């Protein structure tokens, strides 16, 4: 294999790791600020200008804290679980194009680690493996709240896999490819060609499911502070807990990228303007995660299951059937 290719890939991996670890940190800062402003507070203000260095303070605190392993936990699994969450979140990024390809000093850079032909399938599959973080961490913690959280996370993540899968099926039938670059190029003609217009139901279903997949507020019952302390994170401290956190925020960014690319046109025709539009779309989705946290109450686990199996899944199936029928009739008409 080409040495230049290997070096380029390693550089890309390191860049993605560094950028999104830092973004995860700043994500916590933005979340605190946005929530504070929506609740008429100021948020972090004292560390650095406008509290910007709060991220560094939190990082130092997490890194220097004692690594506590409680007495009755299953040690190897307890230690492994946060790594699963963080690792799967970053592994999912391998198939996401973060920027259109560009040329530096005559060398064309593809800002995607690997454009595999099953891109979105790979992303969703690896994100689904992220379930094992909360599940194993919660079960190994020897804590009843963690155990409840583990049971809930298994139920929620597996249920909402169904919704993400079925919701994605309809746009994928239209595009005819699983590669995120192909999906992006399908909509490159402009805003009128966005899949969000032709598949609004799939878009909203996927968006709803994204909240469950990342465990964000209306569906935050996996680690609901007011019922089960911090759920699977109760017994964790220091950097192990920090890895759970980085995983959660990285997941939020990656699912925002996925939604922006699949439904809102991605980076469009690949120009610089299109690339910045992609970042704006991702920023909007990320902001919406924070916005709903300020505005909406959490729902009960049974309501979440009810929503998944009795409301969203039938709608998703109907959407797939109708899309299939329309595509079929179009093909007949074309023939």
């Amino acid at each position: 294999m080409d040495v230049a290719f290997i070096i380029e890939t390693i550089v890309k991996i390191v860049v993605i790791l560094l950028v999104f670890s830092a973004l995860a940190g700043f994500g916590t800062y933005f979340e605190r600020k946005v929530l504070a402003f929506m609740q008429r507070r100021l948020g972090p203000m004292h560390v650095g200008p406008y509290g910007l260095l709060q991220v560094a303070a939190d990082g130092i605190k997490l890194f220097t804290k004692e690594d506590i392993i409680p007495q009755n936990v299953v040690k190897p699994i307890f230690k492994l679980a946060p790594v699963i969450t963080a690792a799967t979140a970053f592994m999912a990024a391998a198939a996401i194009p973060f920027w259109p390809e560009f040329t530096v000093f005559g060398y064309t850079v593809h800002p995607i680690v690997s454009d595999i032909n099953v891109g979105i399938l790979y992303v969703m599959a690896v994100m689904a493996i992220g379930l094992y973080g909360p599940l194993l961490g919660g079960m190994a913690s020897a804590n009843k709240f963690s155990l409840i959280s583990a049971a809930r996370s298994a139920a929620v993540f597996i249920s909402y896999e169904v919704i993400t899968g079925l919701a994605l099926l309809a746009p994928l039938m239209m595009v005819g490819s699983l590669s995120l670059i192909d999906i992006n190029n399908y909509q490159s003609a402009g805003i009128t060609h966005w899949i969000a217009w032709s598949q609004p139901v799939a878009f909203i279903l996927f968006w709803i499911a994204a909240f469950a997949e990342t465990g964000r507020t209306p569906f935050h019952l996996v680690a609901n502070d007011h019922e089960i302390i911090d759920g699977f994170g109760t017994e964790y401290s220091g950097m192990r807990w920090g890895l759970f956190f980085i995983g959660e925020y990285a997941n939020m960014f990656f699912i925002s990228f996925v939604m922006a690319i699949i439904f809102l046109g991605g980076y469009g025709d690949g120009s610089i303007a299109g690339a910045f539009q992609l970042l704006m779309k991702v920023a909007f989705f990320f902001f919406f995660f924070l916005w709903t946290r300020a505005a909406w109450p959490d729902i009960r686990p049974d309501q979440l299951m009810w929503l998944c199996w009795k409301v969203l899944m039938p709608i998703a199936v109907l959407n797939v059937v109708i899309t299939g029928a329309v595509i079929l009739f179009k093909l007949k008409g074309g023939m």
Partner: protein
Amino acid sequence: MHVEPFTDRNVSEHSAYYYVDIENYPVTGWDKFKQVVKRSLKGELFVGLWVVMREMIKFDIHTVKYPLEKLPIGPRYRAVHKLLRLWESGFERCIGCGLCEKICISDCIRMDTRIDENSRKEVTEYSINLGRCIFCGYCAEVCPELAIVHGGRYENASEQRAHFVIKDDMLTPLDFLTAGQQEEYPGFGAITPHEDERVSKTPLAY
């Protein structure tokens, strides 16, 4: 809002109280379905989103950055005690009558007096045990000379309980008094304005 209609706690056309109109819970499947559709399409979720967004745009921040900014406290606030001096002579107002010591319900005031060379009663020691004081304000209320009052110093975290409340700490410093900075006490236990008109004679016989 006018308070009057709320004084009548009974639900009637004269009072402001009314029964909240709560619909019955849906029983049949069709009714439940209708409720779900109504709630989903009514856009209540977007009302919530709009409310928090509106507050963010208005940016009407209510945070008080406490050690840097402080909210004004009420004049009758009962924080750490002060001992006041007479305005013109600068003598201590306390005459050593011991009423505060007597009335203190948590028994935390201790004072020592002696007769000095001018045959005046002098307070040699006066201390309040803040670990026991419940800040009821009886001492300030009972004081016939308006000598002990409650001040507004509420930041009384210290290494020692005895801080703030030995006599030298509470007494107005003399230079402070000559600078005219001792506030005549308008707070708890102070004489209210027009007190003379409100006093009625104690009836001697019923």
